[in-house]
């Protein structure tokens, strides 16, 4: 049996894929504006938990796939995810010590930053008047962080990835 750590890549790919599915899933049309960016949450978790395995380049690749997935300009999410992964990896020691609430604050600012960058890019492309609804995913994403965190930690503990 291979060492659990060599399976880390598989777990990483599966969780990111699941996040991507959640990202574009539309079960109840009224809830769509609240659908958070699950991919960012998963990326932040792996960046904090396994900074030595999971780098900025992996985040960048995931971002490129997210661009194609959501039909944005190529490189938009790639840039954002790479930046977020960079900060998460840089601060991972501190972030690990934080209680969940403080992590939520960090996640909130990550999401706010990413949404602001997207806002800038979308406004550059077209005179798209974005309503207040545009900012809801920042809030729901922050609220979902404890859930994502505990689910992914459970997966990591069960899979014994260190």
């Amino acid at each position, binding site marked *: 049996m291979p060492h659990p750590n060599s399976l880390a890549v598989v777990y990483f790919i599966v969780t990111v*894929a699941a996040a*991507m*599915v*959640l*990202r*574009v*899933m*539309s*079960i109840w*049309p009224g809830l*769509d*504006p609240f*659908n958070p960016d699950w991919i960012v949450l998963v990326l932040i978790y792996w960046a904090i938990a396994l900074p030595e395995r999971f780098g900025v380049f992996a985040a*960048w690749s995931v*971002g*490129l*796939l997210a661009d*194609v*997935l*959501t*039909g*944005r*300009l*190529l*490189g*938009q999410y*790639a*840039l954002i995810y*790479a930046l977020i992964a960079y900060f998460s990896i840089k601060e991972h020691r501190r972030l690990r010590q934080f209680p969940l609430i403080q992590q939520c604050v960090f996640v909130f600012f990550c999401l706010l930053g990413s949404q602001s960058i997207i806002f800038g*890019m979308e406004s550059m*492309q*077209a*005179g*798209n*008047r*974005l*309503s207040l*609804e*545009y900012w809801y*995913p920042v809030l729901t994403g922050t609220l979902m962080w404890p859930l994502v965190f505990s689910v992914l930690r459970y997966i990591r503990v069960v899979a014994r990835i260190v």
Partner: protein
Amino acid sequence: MVSVTLLVMDYRGSRLNSLRSLLAFAVYPLQSLASLPVDSFESLSNTVISYVELQKENRRLKEMQLVNDARLLKLAALEKENIRLRVLLENSFQLGEQVLVTELLSVKLVPYEHTVVVNKGSRFGVHAKQPVLDANGIVGQVIRALPNSSEVMLITDPDHAIPVEVNRNGLRTIAFGTGQPNRLHLPFLANNADVVPGDLLVTSGLGGGFPAGYPVAVVDKFESRPDKSFANIYATPKAQLEKSREFLIVWSDSTPVVLGEHAKQQAPETTESPNAAP
């Protein structure tokens, strides 16, 4: 740095289309997966539909078929007459249009844009800027064709505009999307324009994007603003943008499009194209 370069390149040109198509192969299964719950629910509700209901629906459809057939008879005669008249006027006229039936994937790309994904892509010859219809009217246009799927911008998207004319009197204008579902805005008509609620707006065919004469929307509110030079007019799209699951992608070009083998099995209904070049 690489991201910024990519961003600029993608914005400026179409050189990255091949890269996007390549990545789309990896992403398409995820989109299908996301669409699965809704699809399976639909198929389940189709399976457990009762016999009585099926019978009822069958009868209704047969009646509709009869009515449509009768209308078509008349339409054929009118079409011939139209062609004859156009020949008299020495106008060339292109009638034939080829369509491809496509199904919606229930995914939401971004909540603030009215963009949907359909399950036919460039492998079927779909390309950007093609008009998309449903049974009732114009739905939108293809903005990006990926190998297995394509992204369709609906006419209600805030960035979408479509050239229309009032069916009753041929008054031409442009209808913009509002970002609200089932609402179009016509900002460029004067306060004294001859438009009343209930007027049908059809595509004018100007601009070349959409074929002429397809229903787009029905005017539902005319609000004259004496202090401004233009009136505020709102219209409701004819197409069932929220409910339809099957759309038609239309080739309105004069050149016939070669469809893939699989597309032929899907039976793209080709209307014959009577050529009326003088």
